[in-house]
C-alpha cells in the first residue's frame, strides 16, 4: 500500500468506524468514499417523531488535504433539500461548526449528528429569510460565505 498522507489516514479511520458503527439513520456510501477519500456521500433519514419523519436526504462532504485542520465542505445535494431555517435551497447549511467553530476533534460523525439534531429541533419548516438573495449571490463553496449565525434555538 502506498504511504498515506495524515489526512488520508484519518479519513480512512473515520470511514471504517462510520461504516462499522453508523449513528441511527445515517449511512455512508462506503464504496464511493473508499474510491475517493476526499468526496463522501452520506444518506440521512428524518428522525421519527420530528417534522422530517420519513424524508430522506443526501449530504456531500468534501475534504481538503489539510483535513482535519481544515473543516470539511458540507452541503445537502439531490432532489430533497430539507426545508429548514438554516438550510438554503441550494443545499448550503448555516452551521457554525462547519466554519468558525470547527475543531479537529470533530468528525464526519459528529457533523452528521449536529445536522440531525439541527433538523430534529426544528419547529416550523421554512427557508431562511434571505434564501432567494443568498442563493443568487453566493459562492459555490459554502465555506466562502461569511455566515451570520442567526440564532441558536434551531
Amino acid at each position, binding site marked *: 500500500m502506498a504511504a*498515506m498522507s*495524515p489526512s488520508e*489516514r484519518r479519513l*480512512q479511520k*473515520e470511514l471504517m468506524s462510520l461504516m462499522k458503527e453508523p449513528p441511527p439513520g445515517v449511512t455512508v456510501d462506503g464504496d464511493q468514499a473508499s474510491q475517493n477519500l476526499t468526496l463522501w456521500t452520506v444518506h440521512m433519514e428524518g428522525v421519527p417523531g420530528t417534522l422530517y419523519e420519513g424524508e430522506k436526504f443526501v449530504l456531500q462532504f468534501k475534504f481538503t488535504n489539510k483535513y*482535519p485542520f481544515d473543516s470539511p465542505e458540507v452541503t445537502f445535494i439531490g432532489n430533497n433539500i430539507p426545508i429548514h431555517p438554516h438550510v438554503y435551497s441550494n443545499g448550503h447549511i448555516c452551521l457554525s461548526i462547519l466554519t468558525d467553530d470547527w475543531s*479537529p*476533534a*470533530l468528525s464526519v460523525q459528529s457533523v452528521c449528528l449536529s445536522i440531525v439534531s439541527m433538523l430534529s429541533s426544528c419547529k416550523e419548516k421554512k427557508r431562511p429569510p434571505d434564501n432567494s438573495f443568498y442563493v443568487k449571490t453566493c459562492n459555490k463553496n459554502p465555506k466562502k460565505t461569511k455566515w451570520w449565525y442567526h440564532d441558536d434555538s434551531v
Partner: protein
Amino acid sequence: MFVEELRFTITEKKPNDVFFLLESLNNLLQNSTDQLNAVTADLIDVEILQEIEAIANNGNTGVFFGKTLKDFKLIIEDEELRKHEIFIQYKCPKKLIILSANLPLSSMQNLEFGCLNEIIETFKQYVIELAKYFYELENIDQCCAIMEPQNASYKDEYRRIFLDDRTWLHIEVTPEGLGSNIHLVGQSEYWHNKLQSGLLNWDHDKNIVDNIMTIFDISEFPVPTSRVPEHLSMEADGTMVTSIVCGICLCADLPEIPGLPLPLCQNSSCGVYYHRSCLYEWLVACAGSRPPAFGVATGACPTCLQPITCSKTDS
C-alpha cells in the same frame, strides 16, 4: 556465452559495415561487464564464510543472512538468557561494521571489526558492562505501567511511566544504570511539587524504582484506568489494535514523527490525548499561522475548549 553471442551477431545478422560490428561488440562487452559487476557486488571472501560456518556449528550464537550475502544477523544469548540481535554489514574483506542492535550502541557505532568473533567478543563484554542498565530497565518494566515507548525494549533508553490519566514520568537510564533527565509529561502541580522536592533526596545506593516510589511517596505504581481513551483502531495491515489515539489525527503512532499521544489537556473531565505535533499545528493555525512566542502555542483544547498550551518539542 559471450563468444556465442558474438558468433550469432556475425553469422546471423551478417553485418555489412565495420561500424555496425564495432557497435555490437561494444554493447556485448558493456552487458557482460554489468553482469560481472552485479555478481561480484554480492560476493564475500572465503575466510568469513568459514568463520560463519564455525559459529553456526558451535551452536551458542545464531547466524543469519539478510537480503544479501553481505548482511548478517547475529543472535547472542547472554548469561541471563536474554537474546541480543546484532545486524552487521560486510564492507570488504576484514572489514565489518555494526548497523544496529537491540541495545543503545553509541560506544560501538562506526567501529570497524576484522572478523565476526571480534564482534561477538566485544559485544559480550559490552553486555556485561550493561548489567545495571538491564537490571534497572527490567525492574521499571516490571513495576510500572509504561505508556511509552510501545513494546519497550533494551534499545529504548527511556521510559514514560503512568502516574495518572494526565501525568506521566519521563526517565532515561544511562548505560551505567543511572536515572537521568527525569521530568513530568503533563502539568500536574501535585506531582510536580513532589518531584521537585524529592529529586534532591535521590539515593544512588537504591534502584530507580525505589527512588521514584520514595519521591512520590507511593507504595505501588498506579495503573491506567478505563478512563484513558483507548480506541480500537485498524492498522495498515488490517489487524485491530487497542491503543491510545490522538484526538486530532486518530492515530497512535505517526510514521513521520516519533512519539505517542500525550495527556496534554489538563482539564480533568476531558482527558483526550494528542500528539504534540498535531496539537501544536492546530493551535498555531488558530492563531493565524504566526509562530508563537517562546515556542509555546496557546489556545483552546479542540475537544473541551478549555485553555491549553503546547510547546513544539518535548521539554
